[in-house]
């Protein structure tokens, strides 16, 4: 398992390099640059600005300098739109915010989604099953861009229970709505997956054998059925979790959290190449790391997977 982990980490390096090169050139293909504005800069001013940010160099030199700065100093370069800040500053300030509400959103998804799925499976075709199905449909009808304004209208405007947005150092009042708005549809997805998978496992021959042996239903569920039933949920949660902790543009914009989700879209609109590249790298590293953790979890859950590593 250790060798497998090392191998995976080593293959990540060339993949990230390829991503950097690809993203770097792709961004430059877009018309307009970071300093294209409604009031175009006079040529001499533009020349000075480009020189200051190293954008007057040939593209391959810019790319080499960028990679060199990351490798030697973990320096993602300056932001072109927030002039007193580096990309490191932006990520250092925004990422903990995104990570925090993403984490609580994932907790919300798992803590509610899995039990709901289990209950629905155990009370198959009963009230709880219908309730869970209803919730799943509800969350599809009310995606986060509908749910969030509704929550603000209720919890902020009508009842005055929670602030309408902001972060304020991450106090719990400011986390509740972003976490729920971000997680609701995933929670329904987890519940549906858990239900379906658990139903399938509960009908499997080895469960029938366990029942025939007279094992209590609770033991069958916890010790034999739940682990394999959660495999599809794990697969589902991998990319979802990456998405959650790398930020949602909508959540960041709507709740003004200050997370890095909004930087993706701001970076794209303002052609802030270094912010976009920095975020792409962060996204890539997180995807790799979480997928590795998931694979290891798979191996822990399923001996067949473990043997194949």
């Amino acid at each position: 398992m250790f060798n497998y982990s090392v191998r995976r980490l080593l293959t990540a390096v060339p993949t990230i390099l390829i991503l950097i090169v690809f993203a770097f050139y792709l961004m430059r293909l877009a018309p307009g640059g970071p300093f294209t504005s409604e009031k175009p800069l006079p040529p001499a001013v533009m020349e000075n600005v480009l020189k200051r940010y190293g954008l007057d160099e040939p593209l391959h030199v810019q790319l080499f300098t960028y990679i060199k700065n990351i490798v030697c100093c973990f320096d993602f370069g300056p932001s072109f739109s927030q002039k007193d800040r580096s990309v490191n500053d932006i990520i250092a300030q925004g990422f903990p915010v995104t990570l925090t509400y993403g984490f609580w959103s994932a907790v919300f998804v798992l803590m509610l989604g899995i039990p709901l799925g289990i209950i629905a499976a155990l009370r198959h075709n009963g009230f709880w099953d219908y309730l869970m199905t209803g919730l799943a449909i509800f969350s599809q009808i009310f995606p986060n861009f509908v749910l969030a304004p509704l929550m603000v209208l209720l919890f902020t405007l009508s009842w005055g229970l929670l602030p309408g947005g902001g972060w304020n150092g991450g106090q719990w009042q400011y986390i509740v709505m972003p976490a729920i708005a971000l997680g609701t549809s995933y929670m329904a997805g987890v519940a549906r997956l858990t239900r379906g998978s658990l139903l399938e496992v509960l009908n499997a021959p080895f469960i029938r054998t366990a029942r025939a042996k007279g094992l209590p239903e609770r033991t069958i569920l916890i010790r034999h059925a739940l682990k394999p039933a959660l495999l599809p949920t794990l697969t589902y949660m991998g990319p979802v979790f990456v998405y959650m902790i790398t930020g949602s543009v909508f959540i960041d914009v709507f709740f003004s959290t200050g997370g890095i989700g909004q930087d993706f879209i701001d970076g794209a609109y303002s052609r802030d190449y270094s912010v976009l590249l920095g975020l792409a790298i962060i996204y890539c590293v997180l995807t790799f790391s979480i997928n590795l953790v998931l694979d290891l979890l798979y191996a822990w859950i399923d001996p067949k997977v473990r043997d194949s590593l």
Partner: protein
Amino acid sequence: MSRSFALSALMLSTALSTAAFAADVPEGTNLAADQTFTYRVLDEFSSFDPQVVEDVNGSEVVRDLFEGLYNQDADGNNVPGVALSHEVSADNMTYTFTLRDNAKWSDGNPVTAGDFVYAWQRAVDPELASPYAWFMELMSIENASAIIAGEKPITDLGVSAPDDTTLVVKLSQPLPYFDKMVTHATTFPAPKWAIDAHGKEWTRPGNIVSNGAFVLTEHVLKERSARERNTMYWDNDNTVLDKVVTLVIGDDAQALTRWRAGEVEKTEIPAGQYPALKEEFAEEAYALPRLCNYYFTFNTVSGPEAFKDARVRQALAYAIDRDVIVERVLQGGQFPAYTFTPAATAGFEVPSVEYAGMSQADRDAKAKELLAEAGYGPDGEKLAFTYLYNTSEAHKQVAIVATQMWKQKLGVEVELSNQEWKVFLETRGNQNFDMARGAWCGDYNEASTFLDLLTSPSGYNDGKYSNARVDELMTEAKSSADAQPLYTEVEQILADEMPVVPVYHYSTNMMLADSIQGWPVNNVEQNWYSKNLYKVSE
């Protein structure tokens, strides 16, 4: 130089009014116990460095943190800031400012003329590469252009400090409105010692040293910033607000919800909601004139051949019913435009251009006539072109309404094309369009900030309109004591040749809690200073 100008320029001494420096609180006002003003901004600020900041919201903060030579009063007139007065030499090429001796930085150091010299040299320094370096060129400061181009050292800039309270500025050409330009953030002083000590991080809370009424105490990227009273500020005794907080809220509708919830006291009104909000909150919904115009620009160089004919351009301009666009489409208190320069511009008298005085029915009839004369329309060649705008619901609505008007009244076929902002700018800047949307907000409150845009050498003249007489008049205006007749002639030429179609002049739509008093509603640049505001108890 005209005789009257020469006479008036003779050692003109300008002593500005010493009234209305800070909050003008009427007697008997019941001030709120908590003097905190919280408002919403759409985006994160570009910078808090006066020589680097380039966005409107950032400049608002910088005006609180730093004080330049002059401030503006509630009507947009200059009032003393660090400078008490100035004198202009006979040739109108040298300005000598007398600075107050009681101005201090937030760390207790005195604010001196040398701080301005340092800041202005910094603004043109190629090494800093300020995106607003061009403003120093626009101010015609001696050698600014050469320094920006790297041809001269920054010490050659035409600004000097013979002593701590005297600042001398030499210009490369006379500029009658020069003093209006020193309220711009780029011209604010900078603390060399703090910049040397902290480098690019000098604007962070804790590092920043400023000379304005407030100091920066908190800044969380993309979420909030706070500035609190600067006890060292020379007029701190007359400042009422204790704290000003900005919250970044990227969604207009959500910002309005938070205004309703009382979380912010000022926010912009989402497009189209002004009439309803005005009815619901009569005292708190504002539509204020703004120093910006909205126009359609013809590509007169590489656009359709028809656009080279002034009659075609006039016909298209006449057929636009601006009242419909302003009152039915935008509904935000905008003003129909028949001249390029907004009526709100200081010292500008709107010339009576012929088509502005006609009824819309007459304009429509004239439009048909002009188009037919040019050989287009039902009995002539078919006129068709593409209209380019950047992605926005409001721009789209204006485009649809305008093209429908052209189609119904003149039979002109227009294809709409929208592009993402930066792509649009590049397309328009490279003249890859037939007709495109344009808008311009004045950099200072004087008509030339608009009219210069349509001169041949202007880098912002995307339609590449060129008229030697316009160029000549605008050059003459720079050294004329009374530029109004020149501006009137330029506007008349523009109305005759119609290189652009003025559509409307902007308004500022905002919700401002009635507890916040002292807002400069008559300042068309919307240059507001927190030190002039105060909060009354509800």
